[in-house]
């Protein structure tokens, strides 16, 4: 989910760092050592991690909300249990990641509450796909299959990330994501092999989700949306592949499956270039992408509103749990 790191991030440079410490740090990075929470780290590294991990964490939490809309409505007992398990996992991922982020923001005197506030004020963004509408049960399937499928590809890319606490959290998260994708695929298979109504519902969902899935990996280069921190995350060995490499890996993995189910993709220009060995596709509207992640997507306001209501309605609970004297 690092592709958002480039947006709204405070620019930091390494000019003011102690050159000796910085050099030692970079030696550790290059030797493939893991950096721990209490280790010395350059400001640029810390800032990048905070952006990356708090966005990833809050996206897991906000990501449970679109599927939550379908959790009580799941059409069989097996599906009810499956989707309940999935949304619980997503909340768990959020919790795990926010804890990692909390340790990183501690030196600034900030805590969890600040991150939650940043979400409400719009300072902390969440992933583009979770701003989208989930219109039918087929959307719940597409989210599990393709959104989690995309998440697996982007997170696997960071399984060896240089920051130890994040790297370890990702091991567990990725293991669970595999079950999510299987759960999503099982829903999709039933719909694809089902009645005409079910097939239409599925195709409609794929059509609507396609641009958001392409956007998932972020723009190809800095020139598309302005600045890019892809280079920074690569320099510090947080990630390996570029946005476009990941998107190509996603297309490689999922397009054959999509086509084998008899589904189509709403892009007439889509084709595989055998010579260059990559997919040629219609770029999604990156201005729309910017709009979506600045909380002006189809369901951005409604989803943030849920967090707001929860925050307001549970104020008395927070006060009751707070050590005396109770805060306001």
């Amino acid at each position, binding site marked *: 989910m690092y592709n958002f790191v480039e947006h709204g991030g405070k620019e930091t440079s390494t000019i003011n760092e102690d050159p000796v410490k910085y050099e030692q740090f970079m030696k550790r990075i290059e030797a493939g050592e893991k950096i721990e929470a209490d280790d010395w780290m350059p400001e640029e590294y810390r800032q990048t991690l905070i952006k990356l991990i708090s966005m990833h964490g809050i996206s897991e*939490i906000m990501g449970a909300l679109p599927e939550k809309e379908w*959790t*009580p409505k799941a059409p069989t*007992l097996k599906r009810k249990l499956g989707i309940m398990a999935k*949304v*619980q996992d997503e909340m*768990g991922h959020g919790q795990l990641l926010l804890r990692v982020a909390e340790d990183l923001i501690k030196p600034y005197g900030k805590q969890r509450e600040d991150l939650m506030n940043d979400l409400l004020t719009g300072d902390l963004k969440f992933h583009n796909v979770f701003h989208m509408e989930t219109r039918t049960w087929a959307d719940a399937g597409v989210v599990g299959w393709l959104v989690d499928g995309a998440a697996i590809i982007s997170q696997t890319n960071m399984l060896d990330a240089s920051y130890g606490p994040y790297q370890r959290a990702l091991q567990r998260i990725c293991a669970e994501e595999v079950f999510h994708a299987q759960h999503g695929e099982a829903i999709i298979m039933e719909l694809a*092999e089902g009645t005409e109504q079910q097939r239409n519902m599925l195709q409609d969902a794929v059509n609507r989700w396609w641009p958001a899935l392409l956007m998932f990996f972020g723009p190809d280069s800095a020139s598309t949306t302005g600045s890019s921190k892809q280079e920074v995350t690569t320099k510090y060995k947080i990630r390996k592949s570029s946005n476009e490499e990941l998107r190509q890996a996603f297309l490689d993995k999922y397009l054959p499956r999509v086509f084998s189910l008899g589904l189509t993709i709403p892009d007439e220009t889509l084709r595989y270039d055998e010579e260059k060995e990559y997919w040629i596709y219609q770029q999604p509207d990156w201005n729309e992408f910017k709009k979506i992640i600045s909380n002006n997507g189809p369901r951005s306001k409604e989803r943030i509103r849920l967090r707001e209501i929860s925050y307001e*309605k549970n104020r*008395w609970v927070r006060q009751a749990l707070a050590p005396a004297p109770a805060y306001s």
Partner: protein
Amino acid sequence: MTVIKTADEAKQDRAYLQSLTELLYQLADDDFIISFRGSEWLGLAPHIEEDVSFSSITQNTMGHAVLYYQLLEELGEGEADILAHDRSSEKRRNAVYLEKKNGEGDYIEEPYYDWALTVIRQYLYETFKKVKLEALLQSSYVPLADTAQKVLMEQTYHLAHWKTWVRQLQDSTDEAKSRLQFRIEEAWDEFLDVLELGPEAKEMEKHQLIVSEEELQQQWLADVKDTLTYIPDKPLQKTNGSGRNGEHTEDLTQALNTLNEVYEMDKNAVW
């Protein structure tokens, strides 16, 4: 004591079968509906840790409902999925208090849910569930006794979870205390329905499926008095009706319309 080991054996005795199915519907529908209400809470709990725990409890509870629906399926009542999704309000045997909405609003738009209602309801329900499950360990219907044992393993943690919430809140701010008291007062007017076994109660006891209502209620009250620092000075009632008799409120209709929305699109389709 006659021990009934299989569904086929149970089917030999019509009176026994009737009491058994009645009891199983109560167990299944109670867990099913309270789990449904729990699933509406996701993402709205007081903090992320609670969202994780609560959704785990909700998921386990749905799992318990599934076990009971499967026992009913074995007894020839129909497929578990149909029993869960396709029975009208009058056929449901859950207690009315458990179908009550979490608060004002809808779970997707403007859910003004009340954590005090949830803490009190979950705590009172889980306390009774434990009493009931422990009684069911001695049930003459062996598949039910076995199921009770399985459920108890998870349920112990659920009860502990809600007990912790009650203890923390009732011992904190004045606002928390009064919010809890309000919901306890309300529960006292409605909870009797949960504590009952319905028209077949005597038969259930006779067939040694479960102990008497009185015994269950006494044990529940003793447990509750051990934890709650505030107990209303009035008799327990069921002012919103008797779910055990198939009496239900608009809140159940709302729940059923939501939970079977996709199922209803095509009942014959495979989902």
